């Protein structure tokens, strides 16, 4: 029998074993149930407890914003930032040069990155970059900008004054 055919048979046998054996495991995969990404589950916006980058809730982040003990980084587009952002937040979208902001970010005890959507993809990308550059306490804001607004977090509008040296 040809190797590819044998490989297919092996896959079929393995798949059958896995699907049948699944029910005998301590916490089986829920066959027949739709499993959506963690970030898309109700009430779990950006709140993946298994995410590699630390999270911080809007509730916990608001006092840090008011007391200026954390620097907020807006990972959305320049247009979205100008329309409204966390008070004092810097604008840093994925792919934009970090260097002009790095000294200020390094001086902050905590950096909180936020995004526009439930997936937090942009915030994660920026946070990953900052962590790779040696920043120690970088967190992603759960709930992102929509939850910040909904929970009455302080905000302002306009372009980023500290980012003016950079092209958007």
């Amino acid at each position: 029998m040809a190797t590819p055919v044998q490989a297919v048979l092996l896959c079929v046998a393995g798949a059958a074993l896995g699907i049948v054996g699944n029910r005998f495991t301590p916490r089986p995969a829920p066959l027949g149930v739709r499993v959506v990404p963690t970030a898309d589950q109700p009430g779990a916006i950006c709140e993946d407890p298994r995410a590699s980058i630390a999270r911080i809730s809007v509730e916990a982040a608001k006092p840090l914003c008011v007391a200026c003990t954390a620097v907020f980084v807006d990972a959305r587009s320049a247009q979205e930032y100008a329309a409204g952002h966390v008070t004092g937040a810097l604008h840093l979208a994925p792919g934009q040069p970090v260097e002009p902001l790095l000294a200020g970010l390094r001086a902050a005890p905590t950096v909180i990155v936020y995004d526009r959507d439930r997936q937090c993809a942009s915030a994660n990308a920026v946070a990953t970059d900052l962590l790779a550059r040696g920043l120690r306490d970088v967190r992603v804001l759960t709930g992102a900008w929509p939850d910040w607004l909904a929970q009455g977090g302080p905000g302002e509008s306009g372009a980023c004054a500290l980012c003016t040296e950079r092209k958007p």
Partner: protein
Amino acid sequence: MNRPLLVALRLALGALFLWAALTKLPDMNAFAQDVANYRVLPAGLVPWVAAAVVGIEMVAGLALLIGLAVKPAAVTATGLLSVFVVFLVQALLRGIDLRCGCFGGDEPASWWTVARDLAMLAAALVVSTFSGSSRLRAALQE
């Protein structure tokens, strides 16, 4: 002389696949969630694929370890690892922050994970190409 190298690669690959499957068994539900977080498969298909992947890893790993149907098992491992690499790379490029789900636990998906899978993929390719024949010896003796 180089036959031991091929055997060592086969055994290492088999052990890794079997280990990968065994570490997922205690919490298949979490592994299904890991698969969903890659945002590639339809939600309804995710748990079925998760269960199937673990079974295939187990069968392929066992076959490589005991030396039964080595070539088909290595071809299967090659295919699986290729899919894993594609899943990982697309997630990293899209900025999705997730656990890789490779060996259970909480290991985050990273470029290191991709490099490790590529190394395993290279081993699987060697085993699938040269096992069951004297081609490795012939190639190395040239």
